[in-house]
Structure formats: C-alpha cells, structure tokens
C-alpha cells in the first residue's frame, strides 16, 4: 500500500466527476483528497487526487478511467519527480494576549494571517501535507474553530510533462463550458 498522486485533464462537462468517482467506487477505493480547477487549456479542467492502494490495483482503475471519454490525459505522478502542495485555512481562537504568540508560529511556517477578529485569526498555510499537519498541530492548543484543506495539487518538475496535450484539438471543439447558453442542470462536477 502506498499513496498515489494522480492527475487528470478532463473535459469541463457535467457528470465527469461522477464518472471518475464511479470507477474508484466500483473497485472499493477511497479517494483521500481531490482538487479540481481550470488548466492552461480552455475547456479542460485539471484534477489532482490521492488514493491509497497497491500499484497494480491503482493501475487497473487508471486504465478504466482512461476509457472515460471526457478524460483526455491521465498520469500517476507518484514515480515522477514532482512538486506538490496543499493549502489550508485554519480559524484559530485567539484572544488579544495570544495573538502575538500565534503570529510567531505563523511566521516560522512562512504562513499568513488573512483575517483578524476579536476572538479569532484565520491562518492561510501552504506547503506539503506534512508542513500543513505540523502548523495545525502547533495551533491546536489554542483551539481550532474551523479547518479546511484543499487536498494535494501536483505537477512534475522541470521540462518533463506527462500531461502535455495538443491544445488545438480542443480549440475548435463544440463543447462549451457547462451551463453556457443552456439550462444549467448539474454543474461541471
């Protein structure tokens, strides 16, 4: 068992996430994290997700996923030299007296305070999951009121790009972004 970081370029159309999730569900996998957003190519979204499993089992699901029509490109980055990051927003209880101690912690982790109120601070932390875990543990004694994490996003280092696609193939394509010019039933994902 190991954690696999999988990235996929998918057409930005209704139901795509359902199709992808269905393949993992059918094989009994639990998706540990999932992050989705636009990619460098208009009309294509990029997903990063992490799953725990045996390489062979994960490969089987990836092959099934690759058969989804809307999945344009797919790669398991685990074996690649990659950069990966996660972003967390942490709302920490902070009285006036505690504020400076918390800000010290935030600075050590090169994170940011993005909101201050009388009883709380919102900290924005970016980094590897380990770094995010560490700052959360440091903040926990003060009382974490709310926590949200994006899940991992990843790409390969340097010029290696297993996700390269020919953008011209998509430029002319009829698919409009979901909802454009039509009744919005369901959304992208």
């Amino acid at each position, binding site marked *: 068992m190991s954690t696999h970081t999988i990235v996929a370029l998918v*057409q930005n159309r209704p139901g795509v996430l359902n*199709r992808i999730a*269905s393949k993992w569900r059918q094989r009994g996998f639990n998706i540990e994290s999932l992050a989705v957003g636009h990619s460098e190519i208009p009309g294509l979204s990029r997903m990063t997700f992490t799953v725990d499993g045996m390489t062979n089992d994960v490969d*089987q699901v990836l*092959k099934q996923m*690759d*058969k989804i*029509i809307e999945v344009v490109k797919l790669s398991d980055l685990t074996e690649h030299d990659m950069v990966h990051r996660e972003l967390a927003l942490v709302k920490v209880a902070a009285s006036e007296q505690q504020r400076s101690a918390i800000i010290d912690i935030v600075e050590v982790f090169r994170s940011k305070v993005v909101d201050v109120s009388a009883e709380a601070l919102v900290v924005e932390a970016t980094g590897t999951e380990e770094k995010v875990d560490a700052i959360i543990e440091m903040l926990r004694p003060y009382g974490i009121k709310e926590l949200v994490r994006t899940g991992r996003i990843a790409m390969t280092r340097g010029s290696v790009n297993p996700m390269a696609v020919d953008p011209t193939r*998509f430029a002319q394509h009829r698919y409009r972004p979901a909802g454009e010019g039509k*009744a919005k039933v369901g959304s992208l994902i």
Partner: protein
Amino acid sequence: MTKMTGAQIVMECLAREGTEYIFGYPGGANLPLYDTLPQYPQIRHILVRHEQAGAHAADAYSRITGKPGVCWGTSGPGATNLVTGIANAWMDSVPVVFITGAVVTWLIGRDGFQEADITGITVPITKQNYLVLDVNDIAETIREAFHIATTGRPGPVLVDIPRDIQQQVTEFHWPETVDVPGYDPVTKGDSGQIKKAAELINEAERPLILAGHGVLISQAYDELRELAERAHIPVICTLLGLGGFPGSHELFMGMPGMHGMYWNNIAIGEADLVMGIGMRFDDRVTGRLKDFASKAKIVHIDIDPAEIGKNLHPAVPIIGDVKEVLRELNPQVVSARHDTWHRRIQDIRAEHPSITIPKVDKVLPQYVIKKIYDLSPKDAYYVTGVGQHQMWAAQYFWGDNPASFITSGGLGTMGFEVPAAIGAQFARPKSTVWSICGDGGFQMTLEELATVVEYELPIKFAIINNNHLGMVRQWQHMYYADNLQSVALFQPDFVKLAEAYGMPGMRIIEKADVDGAIEKALRHPGPVLINFEVEQHEDTFPAMPPGAALSETVDTPTYDGEYEFMPGTGSREKVRSQ
C-alpha cells in the same frame, strides 16, 4: 438548411446512420419521436412488450448483423426497464444506441412524474451517455453516440432527450465528421510486440488459441483460421467466441472453462503457449487464476488496454483490433506441425469424451439440444437463455455458420432467449432461428410471444423444461448438500399459453417424439413452441467447482450401458450422432 424539430433530427440522424429497426416502447416523454415515425418509412419501429426486451432484441440484432442496434423507451420506468438490457450489452461489448425520452427540462431534478436520473444510473454500464439540453446539440450527439458505440471496444451508448427539447425547432445540420478529443481507440497493434508474439509462436511446441468474442466483432474469421492452420494450433472458443471458428474444422476444440470440454481444461495446463485472442480471461474460463496455464507463456491480443493485465500478466500484450493484428502477425508465423501435441490432446479426448449422451429411455435435455442442432439447416441461428440449457447448447454447438450462436455471456441474463430471438429473426429474416429456452428464463420474458406473433416471426421456441431452475438446483445439489430451495417451478400450461398468443404449441414427454416435433416445427412456416419435458435432475458436466482450478474439473460421469452419442475426434461429421 431545413428547420426541424428535435424529434425529426433524431430520426434524420438514425436514417443517415443506416438504422433499419428501432425496438421500442412509447410513453409520455418520447411521444414527439413517435409523432415523426410516419415521416421515416425506411425505419421500422418494432413494438416490444417490455423495454428490457427491446434492449435484448437490439443487442442480438447487432451481434448478428455487425451493425449498431437501436432501442428506445420513455423516461422513468421506461428507462429503468432498459437497465438490464443495457448492462447485458455492456458486459458483452455490443454496440447498441439507446434513446430515452426525459421529463421536460424545467422538471429535471424536481422528481417530476416518471423522472429517473437515467444518465446517472447508467454511468457504470454505458460506454458513454448524454443528457441533451439544447436542441442544437442533438445531431452531433447522436452522431457521436454511434461513433463511440461502434468503434474501439464496442458498447452501449445512451442519449437522454427531454420532451421539450424533442419539440423545439432548429436548423438541421449533419456533422460530416466526428471529432471526439480524448477518444482515440488503437486498432493497429505494436509491430515490435507482434514480432515478439510471432517468435513465441514459432518456438512453441504445445500452443493453444483461446478465441473470444473479439474475433466475431472484428470479423477476423479468415485471419484466425489462417493462423491456426499455418502454425497447427488447436483453437478453443470461449462461450462468446463460439461461431468465430468453424466447428467442423479439425483444429476446433470446443469450449473451455467451468462447463467446457475436459480436454481443453487439461490441455491449457500443459500448453507452453496460450494465445488469448479477443477475449478477457474471464473467471469462468480461467478457474483459479494462479493455477491457470501455469506452464505457458501468454500472448494477449485485445483492443481494450484495460483488459491487458486485468486478470493475468501476459508475456506479450498486444493492444489492437484482432483482424488488423492477425493480418500483421500471420506472415511472420512459420508453417509448423505439432503432431505430438495434437495426439496428446486426442488422447485426453478419447479418455474423457466429456459430451456423451447415454442411451436411456428418459428425455435427456442434452439429447434434445443435440437433436435440434442435427436436424436444423446449416445456416440456422441459435439463441439461448442462461443456465444448464445454455451450457449444453454451447457444449454441443459445433456449427460452421459465423456468429450463429447468440447468448448472454458476461451478465448471464435469464430471459434473454425470447427477445434476443426476435432481434435475431429481424437480422436474418430468411434463416431458421431457434430460441433454446430454460423454463425459468422463458417465464421472465414470455410476454414477447405477443411481439413474435404480431410481427409474424417464425421463431422456433424449444423450452428445455426440467421444471426447475436447473443450474441453481445443480449448485444446491453439488455444493449445498442437496438442500433444494426455491428451485422447483410452478408452471403454466405452455401449450395453452402459446395457443393463447396465437401460435401452435407441442408438449413432448417421450423420447420417440423428439425428432418428429423438431421436424414439424422446422416445417411450420410460423412461430412454434415446443415444451420438452426433460429429465428433471440431470446435471451439466463437465463442471469445475467454483473457486477451483481448471485441472480440478469434474468430468462427465461414465455410464455402463450403451451411448446415444459419443463424440469422435475432429470433424462435425464425427461429432454428429453415431
């Protein structure tokens, strides 16, 4: 440019795709489609009596003609009734385009009357599905649906169109080309891999071919035959591969696996090369995987990359269309003889003839099925249900007519036999079509006798009636200490039932009457039903226990008396009754 309604666009697209038949059922959400039927007389709508039947009919039609089947139904229950039929086409890789009416767009997601999220429901059992929300998208969507259904590894595609979209009017534009980014099925095999495969074949001393449905789908009959003859390789056909290689050919070995020929299951364990051609090493074929073909190198040819390495790891995987791959492979294969290997298999066959029928007074089910094969014309088509009769039908099928054995393999859908025979008869109106039915399966879809009679389809129904869910009874008998639960079936009078639908029926309880009934049915110009009341407790052998290895297959028990039928070696003539 002509203005058309969405429904007219659907029909126009179907016509341009060459659709001959739509198997369907009307309802509130697809009424606009029915409204346009008179404008398209070249497309014939076949009214079935249940949507599942329409799906199976389109499925069988497609398997025989090689063309995509078309089936439609209304929203909600109409769509959900299709689900079993869609799953059946999905498991057996059959290109069927399903069109469902959906509730009007403003009711979608609001639990409208007869609403079902059919695109959500069918995600895991379709190759692709669409909910069309703009009338301007219909033409491209239908075009794309046919393209995706029929290319690569074929499969069902569903298009769900709300009623209001069917009614809206727009300019019709026929897309001349289809461009689906992200969908590029590979058909040409990798030349390096093909060369490696040729080397393995040329080195092999005990090669075997396991030919599957892919041979039929890519119509690689000649190429498979050339390969087998050139390298002198015995050809084993999987359940869905039957009809992909001539049964009368001396290299044909019959079916492998759970109820396959004993000699095949042993030979697979002794082979030094196993070539899986257009098949997926299904559990019913391989038995316990870790013991499968343990002395063999595996060459696996399949068009679906996801099938490679799914169940076992081949020495040489080749992704591509069977026909294209074999065309490139065959010239690299050196002509060879493997007489010692063939003699070895013949020896196992002589010792374990597997398909033997003892001479007894009782009406044995396998005897009836064998007689149907022997007495029917060579270009007949056979459709089966699922269970014991299906396995006997597969075991005794040694015919030459390509794609003439139609059965539900992957999903194992009881009730397939009645509606699939309807599709088969529409595909081959001039040929004899036998529906070999189980008494259980027949009762699942017998409402289609109305369709049969209405469209004057001369289908011959043979109910192999052992008054039980035979295969379940056999499992309870063999693996659950004979604790028979819910397997004995109360039955209607099948003859009266046939007559009630307006077709003749016969009840056969004596062995002496079997031939006469089959001949009478074949002579009758219309549909006929024969209720063969057969021995109730006959088990299907050979039988590999669930979870066992092929080598643990239990062979057909030996019998002390005379045999009605004992297979010879090789040709169909010898396999025929002696």
